[in-house]
């Protein structure tokens, strides 16, 4: 919960950006989609459980250094997003310790804080403020954001009139101008048309610099291999491998294929 402008001091390359030690995350969540007082009263005294414990992460150790681009891969439900939420301070860990040496900006979902009833212009401010920028920061960067989104005059139209591609483009543009020390991007690249996809990938490449750390979560293995210089592979909340991108991705591919063929051999 640190505003971006507070900690804009230079970082020496290769110094620690994020350190995750013995991280464990279990959380209690309600079984019902919507927990209600009615359900609670109806089952009063019957010993029915209303919550269950979810094991999201166990014994995860990761160090991210400045200048590094870390890719995080793994199948659905592997704990990738949970790990990102812990690093960005959205969910507190249950075990272990996470140390963050700099300002963090998260791009866990696109268009957070946007209000479809407002114009694109208003939403740039809303989204920017939600991401922790100050109004002055946004004023300064507004033209850059508008240019990057390529929306033209549509920026003054209400967002509910936008196509989903336009929505995603504006959302990515807001996030892309934030220049934090540590940037976490979760699956945000798979939006927009091919041209904009390439543009956002280029923007991410631009953001790679020696005084910044990037963490990229994606299923697009080719992109990860292209952009990252280190990859971790999570499976069911544990760290399976970390290291050289091509090696880890090869291991992951073998693992996924092995599982796929095993299940396809079964008689259903």
């Amino acid at each position, binding site marked *: 919960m640190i505003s971006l402008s507070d900690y804009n001091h230079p970082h020496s390359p290769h110094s620690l950006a994020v350190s995750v030690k013995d991280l464990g995350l279990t*959380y209690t969540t309600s079984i019902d989609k919507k927990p209600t007082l009615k359900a609670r009263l109806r089952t009063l005294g019957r010993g029915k459980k209303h919550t269950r414990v979810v094991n999201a992460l166990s014994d995860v150790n990761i160090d991210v250094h400045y200048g590094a681009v870390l890719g995080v891969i793994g199948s659905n439900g592997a704990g990738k997003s949970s790990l990102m939420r812990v690093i960005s301070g959205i969910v507190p860990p249950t075990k272990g310790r996470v*140390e963050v040496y700099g300002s963090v900006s998260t791009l866990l979902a696109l268009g*957070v804080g946007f209000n479809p*009833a407002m114009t694109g212009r208003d939403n740039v401010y809303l989204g920017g*403020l939600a991401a*922790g920028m100050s*109004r002055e920061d946004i004023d300064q960067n507004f033209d850059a954001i508008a240019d990057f989104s390529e929306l033209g005059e549509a920026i003054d139209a209400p967002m509910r009139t936008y196509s989903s591609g336009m929505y995603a483009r504006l959302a990515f543009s807001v996030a892309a101008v934030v220049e934090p020390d540590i940037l976490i991007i979760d699956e945000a690249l798979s939006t927009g048309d091919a041209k904009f996809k390439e543009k956002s990938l280029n923007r991410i490449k631009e953001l790679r610099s020696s005084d910044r750390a990037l963490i990229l979560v994606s299923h697009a293995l080719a992109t990860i291999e292209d952009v990252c210089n280190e990859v971790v592979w999570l499976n069911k909340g544990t760290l399976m491998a970390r290291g050289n991108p091509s090696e880890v991705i090869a291991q992951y591919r073998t693992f996924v294929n092995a599982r796929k063929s095993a299940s396809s051999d079964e008689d259903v």
Partner: protein
Amino acid sequence: MDKPVVVYEPFRAGLPPMRDYLRTLWGRRTFIAEFSRSELREKNYGTVFGQLWLVLNPLLLSGVYFLLIYVIKGSNDANRFGHLTATLFLFYLIANSLTGGVKAITSGQRLILNTSFPRVMLPISATVIALFKFVPTLIVFAAIHLLIGLPYSWQMFWAIPIFLIALLMGLGMSILISCINVYFRDVSSMLPYLTRSLLYLSPILYEASSVSDEIKSLEIINPLFYLLDSWSRVVVYAQAPTTFGLLHSLIWALTIFIVGTYFFLSRERDFAVRL
């Protein structure tokens, strides 16, 4: 090596470090303002007719209730109308804060799951919205006050502390109920009955002086009873409020605010996984 800027460790039950929390909250004040403004805009309050509606709506409401009083009791004096509008408008400040607050957390799911910020911001903006809606009604009341020739005196400055108590009460209720609604989602559907009961149990359609002593002693458990009574004394009759009335509402407001905030802050780190 640098010192870590932020450390996340398993949390113990209880409050987060308050100084950091308040500092971050203060740093986010522009977001609170912008967020509230956009919510208001969404309901068309950005347009001329939308704003006109903000004034018309309370006027129509007080008109309807005045009709009700007239039919039931046959009294139609100006003071009664002044009392009705003044207390009804203040009541709606608190009721709007409650109805806005109840879904503040549950509907802020996307924000909560994807950004880290002091969660208490969301119920606070619900109260800010209620305040935005209250301001035009204050102007309407000033006009009514003038039109029906209600008295003026220096005692009317008591309206300021009473208003602040009401705001604190609304904020406390908003924070408390937004948190309860995370755990029991049906609270939001029970809320209309709660606010309706509060409306009828408080001296709005009637005056506090017309209530029997027995009922009055029961009204101690109604947080709004003496608050609205004091408000009416001050802004309608231009008298000083009673010390008991002031203390009663202040103690209730502080209790609700402190209990609500404690409950909220000690639980807010849990919200992300509960939504």
